[in-house]
């Protein structure tokens, strides 16, 4: 099968995790191969010390998010053949501490994630009948694309505010808060609204940069979620009418 040669520049850390450098490689890729394929080729045939993360390799788990030519993307869903010509620059996600090479610690991301009570909280945990949400219902329509988050961290990495404000909840957490607040079966609206109302860390810190929406591999309009959260905070009683 026809292959194309790509020059790949990968961000490396020294053994002890100190210092950064760029290592250059050349890889042969078929047209439909991905950045993840390139990384495996480097690992298997050129440098077996290269560190990167992956799991499902089909864009479902969110593990392989890295920065490709300055944009946070899923390595398994990015095809070099579809990028503009030129060297590929692979770096770890920004805004997150680098463990080694392309692997970052997701701790800051999940710290914010947990603050919004991301899991569903049933109004009656002892209920024996199911509360179903019909596909034509308001919740189903309003939450349609908000549910697709795979917590890959690309949005948090891209966000200009998360870069300077370590306390900021970030787009993923705010989107998850909004999704749960929308759910008529959930019981923790008030607690979540209180969390996202915080002056230094809440929805108010979003300044409509749209970086998050631009990089989300699932195409979620995260800025839209945060905007609707802000308007909900202007009129919290509207939660009941959602």
């Amino acid at each position: 099968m026809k292959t194309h040669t790509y020059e790949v520049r990968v961000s490396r850390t020294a053994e002890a995790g100190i210092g950064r450098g760029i290592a250059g490689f050349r890889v042969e890729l078929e047209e439909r191969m991905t950045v993840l394929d390139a990384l495996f080729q480097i690992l298997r045939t050129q440098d077996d010390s290269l560190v990167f993360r992956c799991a499902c390799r089909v864009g479902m788990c969110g593990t392989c998010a890295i920065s490709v030519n300055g944009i946070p993307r899923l390595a398994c869903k990015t095809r070099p053949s579809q990028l503009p010509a030129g060297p590929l620059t692979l770096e770890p996600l920004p805004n997150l501490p680098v463990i080694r090479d392309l692997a970052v610690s997701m701790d800051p991301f999940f710290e914010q994630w947990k603050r919004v009570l991301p899991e569903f909280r049933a109004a009656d945990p002892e209920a024996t009948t199911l509360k179903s949400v019909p596909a034509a219902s308001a919740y189903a329509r309003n939450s349609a694309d908000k549910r697709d988050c795979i917590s890959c961290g690309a949005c948090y990495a891209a966000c200009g505010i998360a870069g300077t404000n370590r306390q900021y909840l970030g787009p993923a957490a705010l989107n998850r808060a909004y999704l749960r607040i929308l759910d008529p079966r959930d019981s923790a609206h008030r607690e979540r609204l209180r969390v996202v109302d915080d002056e230094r860390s809440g929805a108010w810190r979003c300044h409509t940069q749209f970086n998050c929406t631009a990089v989300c591999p699932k195409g979620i309009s995260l800025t839209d979620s945060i905007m609707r959260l802000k308007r909900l905070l202007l009129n919290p009683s509207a939660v009941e009418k959602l």
Partner: protein
Amino acid sequence: MRFLPGMVAHTVQRLTGITLLVYLLVHVRTIHKLSEGPEAFDEALAFFRNPLFKMAEIGLLATVIIHALNGIRLTMLDLSIGHSRQRLYWAWALGAGLVLFLAGAVPMFLFGVWKSV
């Protein structure tokens, strides 16, 4: 992270905002001289009567125009209008801003800076 259009707009909004705030504070201090009588006020104005400040005034026009137009864009986005076209609206703000700027700046230059030089 690459500087995408939405981020450029945010940065421009902040830089122009700071510029306008600094201008406002200086402007109010100058206008305050009105209360000290004609001589004090006219002396304060004379300080700004040179081509450098006249050019800066033209820059101020550009600053306020882009800040206001992008502000309108942001307020529309706050109402969830046009999220899918936010980059286009930024381009429109720049385009309309240029037109409005030229409409104001050309006369200002010809009758202000050029005349005083």
